[in-house]
């Protein structure tokens, strides 16, 4: 455990050093003024963070809101560094055997309409998220199943009483969707008002939203983090086509895009603009998963599923695919680099399909197929009609499986029928699926592999896996957590091979070099308050003129 933590600390230091090398941390003093123009590749369904799950809402709307706690904006690459936003001091340590968290709330904070923010607003917000009334939607209430009650004994204090100690509580509270709403708005206008209205206490005030065009905001003059934000305002421009977003940065119509570009786009921008482009890169908390349908023969046979996993040369794929697609890192079911996740060395020794001798893996795969009586298996790989990275990885997988004698065709569908097939029709052999989360919260994130988790489309049951997960969820001790996590991972990837991992995504953000202060996080949902960002005016004028 100690060596893993040491390696993790080293990776954080190395990551920070790389970010410094990329020029993300300016050594000069921050400047005030200017408008940031960001391009967003997805549409806003509503403004309500509590029900939405798209970055198309987070990127333009998050800067209007505050959080109770958040991923440290000065160190967002760390998956374990959480800091107070509306609370004061450090993120509280739990009391009562890990079952009580007491937050002291910052005073003097106001919403855009001038209403003072108190602990009652925090309580009302989390009551809405965790205990929505009948008929009211809340997309993340499952993350807060450990909460027993929330109290606001006075204006400055919020107490969360948990049913059991849980390692997922703090990361869940830090999720960027947990916008803090005014209790007054919820009481007076109801729970759906925030879907179409904005009244936050974040670094920027809402100005306008023109559907399909842009959202604009101006600096909140009363923002509570001293000296911030640096920008006078921002304009989030909707641009669904990646080529438009790319050319907009190149052609001076936009400064930055926060979701990420493929390697080729980065290279094109750097080639065209040289040192006028900065690049930050990071592992990404999204992973492509192969999901066999256990109800379809022969994928009900674990030997067949294990053979499919054994055929994949993950290290080789990482080397070549990372040059053309937004995937790179080889990992297990947990975010690579997180203290609870398995190290590459552990995976290589203990998990099937991760051994370095690819030929031996494939020989074993052929043996398993022969044992199962499916040496020349033919099947269809169901995939989503999106190039990056689905179709690229799907094509690569087919090649990998051909090497053990399998005949695989790719069945590509647009997003809507793709999800209908995966979730309701279930008429697929093997499908690519993905797990993409905001805050790195491995214990919650791996519920994706749980049969009863609500997002597992392999269609199987396994009580041992369910029991392991419940035990993991209710354990506060980090060493015990790691032990249970490893057992869960082995059950998923080895014993059952119920699903298996291809490659983790890799985030690449090229942007104009006059944009300073932004630091990449392992998710495109994180660190999007824009309060640390500032414009180097001299560099801006040099690049774009007066």
């Amino acid at each position: 455990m100690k060596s893993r933590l040491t390696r993790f600390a080293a990776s954080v230091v190395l990551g920070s050093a790389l970010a410094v090398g990329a020029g993300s941390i300016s050594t000069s003093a921050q400047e005030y003024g200017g408008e940031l123009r960001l391009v967003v590749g997805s549409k806003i369904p509503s403004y309500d963070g509590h029900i939405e799950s798209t970055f198309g809402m987070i990127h333009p709307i998050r800067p209007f809101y505050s959080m109770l706690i958040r991923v440290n904006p000065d160190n967002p690459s760390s998956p374990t560094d959480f800091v107070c936003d509306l609370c004061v001091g450090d993120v509280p340590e739990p009391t009562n055997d890990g079952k009580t968290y007491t937050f002291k709330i910052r005073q003097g904070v106001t919403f855009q309409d001038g209403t003072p923010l108190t602990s009652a607003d925090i309580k009302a917000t989390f009551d809405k998220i965790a205990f929505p009334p009948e008929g009211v939607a809340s997309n993340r209430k499952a993350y807060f199943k450990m909460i027993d009650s929330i109290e606001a004994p006075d204006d400055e204090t919020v107490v969360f009483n948990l049913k059991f100690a849980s390692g997922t509580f703090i990361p869940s509270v830090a999720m960027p969707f947990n916008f803090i709403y005014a209790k007054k708005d919820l009481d007076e206008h109801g729970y759906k008002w925030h879907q179409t209205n904005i009244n936050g206490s974040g670094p920027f005030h809402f100005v306008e939203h023109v559907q399909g065009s842009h959202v604009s905001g101006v600096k909140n003059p009363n923002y509570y983090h001293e000296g911030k934000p640096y920008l006078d305002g921002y304009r989030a421009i909707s641009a669904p086509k990646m080529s438009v977003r790319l050319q907009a940065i190149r052609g001076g119509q936009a400064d930055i895009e926060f979701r990420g570009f493929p390697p080729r786009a980065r290279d094109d921008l750097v080639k065209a603009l040289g040192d006028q482009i900065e690049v930050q890169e990071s592992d990404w908390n999204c992973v492509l998963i192969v999901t066999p349908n256990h109800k379809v023969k022969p994928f009900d046979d674990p030997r067949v599923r294990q053979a499919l996993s054994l055929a994949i040369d993950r290290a080789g794929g990482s080397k070549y695919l990372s040059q053309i697609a937004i995937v790179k890192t080889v990992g297990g079911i947990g975010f690579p680099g997180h203290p609870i996740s398995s190290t590459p060395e552990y995976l290589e020794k203990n998990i099937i399909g991760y051994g370095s001798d690819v030929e031996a893996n494939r020989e074993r795969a052929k043996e398993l197929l022969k044992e199962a009586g499916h040496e020349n298996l033919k099947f269809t790989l169901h995939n989503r009609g999106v190039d990056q990275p689905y179709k690229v990885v799907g094509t690569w997988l087919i090649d990998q499986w051909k090497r053990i004698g399998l005949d695989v065709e790719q069945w590509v569908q647009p997003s809507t029928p793709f999800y209908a097939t995966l979730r309701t029709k279930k008429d697929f052999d093997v499908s690519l699926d993905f797990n993409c989360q905001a805050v790195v919260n491995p214990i919650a994130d791996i519920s994706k592999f749980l049969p009863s988790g609500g997002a597992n489309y392999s269609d199987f049951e396994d009580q041992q896996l369910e029991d392991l997960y419940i035990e993991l969820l209710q354990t506060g001790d980090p060493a015990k957590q790691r032990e249970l996590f490893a057992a869960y991972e082995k059950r998923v990837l080895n014993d059952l091979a119920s699903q298996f991992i291809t490659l983790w995504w890799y985030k690449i953000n090229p942007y104009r070099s006059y944009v300073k202060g932004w630091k990449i996080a392992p998710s495109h949902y994180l660190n999007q308050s824009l309060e640390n960002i500032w414009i180097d005016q001299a560099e801006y004028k040099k690049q774009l003129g007066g």
Partner: protein
Amino acid sequence: MYSYIVKRLLILLPTLIGAAILVFLLLRLVPGDVCLLRFGGEGGYADPEQIRLCQERLGLDQPIFFQFVDYMVGFFTLDLGVSMWTAQPVTEEIGIRFGLSLQIAIMATLVSVIIALPLGVISAAKQNTPTDYFVRAFSIAGIAMPSFWLGILIILGLLIGSQAFFGRPWMPPIDYVPIWVDPWYNLSALIWPALATGYRYSAVATRMTRSAMLEVLHEDYVRTARAKGLIEKVIINKHALKNAMLPVVTIIGIEFAFLMGGLVVTEQVFNLNGLGKLFVESVTQSDYTLTQALVMLVVAIFVLVNFLVDIMYAWLDPRIRYN
């Protein structure tokens, strides 16, 4: 003339109803719905209860027949409903984009007419001369080249050209500002797509003008005019051009209607917040209400433009209304 107009108007209604039924049925053939995509499309956890509530709110849990009845009632009462993705009224969603699409359509039509009429007439008047060959090559190139591809070339040309000449790459603005707010900004964004689409549009109209003019110029009354000693300019402008305009007006009308909703790819290339881009988004998001309304809008525009073209026919050629 009035009975002619009334007859044409009566034909419009069954066309619109037929289109409404067809679009409803075709959309439901694709499996899946907007709720599955909206809450689970980015790989995160999607609460099943939330998906159920969404389907209930949008009426997607109802049998298709009830959804159809609801839709047709809305159709006959002109209630287009709300977008399934944004929950904003469909009329508002369309209204925001309509101005931009209309402006592009008008600008492209102007570009087209300014190019097509003179070139078509000159080409016909100077048939089988180098001028005619050049005009024909120019127009064939316009037909062969998709407008979105020309749009891509224009953007790349602007990026590369501006970097070469001014030291910094420039591309047209990617957000829309109405022309009455900032005319310069508006035109610097819209002139390029108007040129890209107007060129293709002009190519079709040029060829139509040329062939119609050639046909008219061989008519007996033109020969008579020449025999009477009228100068060629008067013959072409006063006698031939008006009579050659019938098919040209048809083409211009149909192309205009097409531009109002058909600039699907070009609007994406230039990131224009118009009806074409909205169309793509509504289809990919399975936003039935919005897609249905957009299809009906395009059908209505086509029907209306055809109606106006028919009326213009009758005005240009009295034989049509008397028959």
